[in-house]
C-alpha cells in the first residue's frame, strides 16, 4: 500500500527522446549560418570602424592580408614594429606580391578577375605600411582592394 502511494505521487520523468532532434536542429542552424575560421592570428588585429561599408561576400573570391603589431606572446621575440601576416606566417613586404599571385593561381580561372584583396589592418598601424602593400598589389595588377573594418562609428578611430 505504502509503496503504491509513493509511486503515484512522484512526478513523471521528463521525456528526453526529442533532445537529439533539438540539438541536431541547433547544429544544422550553426552549420549553415557560420563560416570556418581558417587563420590563426599572429598579429594584433583590432580593425578600425567605419559605417559606409559594403559586405564582403563569397569567401572564395577573397585573399586576406593581415597587418599589425606582433601579438603579445611573440612581441618579446619580434619587437613591436608592425608585421605583415600572409596565410599562417609572418612575412616581409617583398613576399606580398609572390604570395598574392600564388593564391590567385589556386582560384578557378572563371573568378580570377573578381578576386578582391581584403586588407585587415590594425588601426594603430602607420599608413606607410599599407601604402607599400597597395604599391605591391598595383605592381602585380590586382586592383580590387577592400579596407576591411568593423561596422561602427568611424569617429571612434580618432580617439
Amino acid at each position: 500500500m505504502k509503496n503504491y502511494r509513493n509511486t503515484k505521487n512522484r512526478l513523471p520523468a521528463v521525456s528526453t527522446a526529442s533532445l537529439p532532434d533539438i540539438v541536431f536542429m541547433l547544429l544544422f542552424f550553426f552549420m549553415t549560418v557560420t563560416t570556418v575560421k581558417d587563420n590563426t592570428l599572429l598579429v594584433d588585429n583590432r580593425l578600425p570602424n567605419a559605417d559606409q561599408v559594403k559586405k564582403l561576400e563569397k569567401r572564395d573570391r577573397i585573399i586576406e592580408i593581415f597587418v599589425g603589431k606582433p601579438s603579445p606572446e611573440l612581441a618579446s621575440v619580434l619587437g613591436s614594429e608592425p608585421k605583415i601576416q600572409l596565410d599562417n606566417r609572418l612575412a616581409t613586404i617583398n613576399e606580398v606580391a609572390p604570395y598574392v599571385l600564388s593564391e590567385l593561381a589556386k582560384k578557378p580561372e572563371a573568378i580570377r578577375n573578381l578576386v578582391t584583396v581584403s586588407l585587415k589592418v590594425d588601426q594603430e598601424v602607420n599608413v606607410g605600411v599599407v601604402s607599400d602593400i597597395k604599391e605591391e598589389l598595383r605592381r602585380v595588377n590586382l586592383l580590387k582592394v577592400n579596407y576591411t573594418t568593423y561596422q561602427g562609428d568611424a569617429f571612434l578611430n580618432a580617439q
Partner: protein
Amino acid sequence: MARNNEIPEVNAGSMADIAFLLLIFFLVTTTIETDVGLDRKLPPKDPTPPIKVQEKNIFRVSLNKKNELLVENEIMSLENLKSATIDFLDNGGAPKGDGNYCDYCQGDRSLYASDSPGRAIVSLNSDREATYGVYILVQNELTAAYNELRSREAERLFNLGYEEMEEIYFDPQTDLKAKSELKAKINQIRTMYPMQLSEAETNMNLIAEFQ
C-alpha cells in the same frame, strides 16, 4: 527461443551527447560575422599620360603625421570634412549654357570650387606616419559625402535611397529582371556623382583611385 531472434533496439540515449559534441565543435571552429569594409579600386601601374585638371576642380585633403587634417590649405576638424566635401562636389560652378552645366546640383555655384560633380576630383594625401584608423576615418567621411549626394538624387528620381538600391541589387534573392532595372538606375546615379578619389604620390603627380 523466438524472442532471441528479434533484433535488439539500438539505444538512442547517447545520440544527444554525440549531437552536442558536434554542435560544440562547430561553435568553436566557426565565426558568424561576414566581413565588411570599404571597397576601392587601385589605379593601374602602367603609366598613363597626366591629365590636366583645373585647380578649382581638385579638392585637396591631406593628413599629417599628427593626424591633423588640411583641407584646401586650411586646417579642418575631422567632423567638418563630410560637409565640406559635399559643398565642393555639389557646387556646380559651370555657368548655364556651358557643356558641363549641372542642373541637379544644389550648391553655391561658386567660381572657386568644382565645375560639375563629373569633373570634381578629391585628392587625398596622407603622411606615412599617420595612423591607419584616422586614414580610414577620412576615407569613410569622403565615401559618406558621395553616398549622401547619391542618395539625395536617388530619392528624388526613384524614391529609393542609393544604399537601399545597392542592397537590393546585391541581395541574391532579387530576380534577374529587377536586377537589370536596378543596375541601370544605379549606373545613372553613379554617372551623376562619379567617385573620383585620387591618392597623390606627390603634389604634381596625381594617381587616380576610382571606385
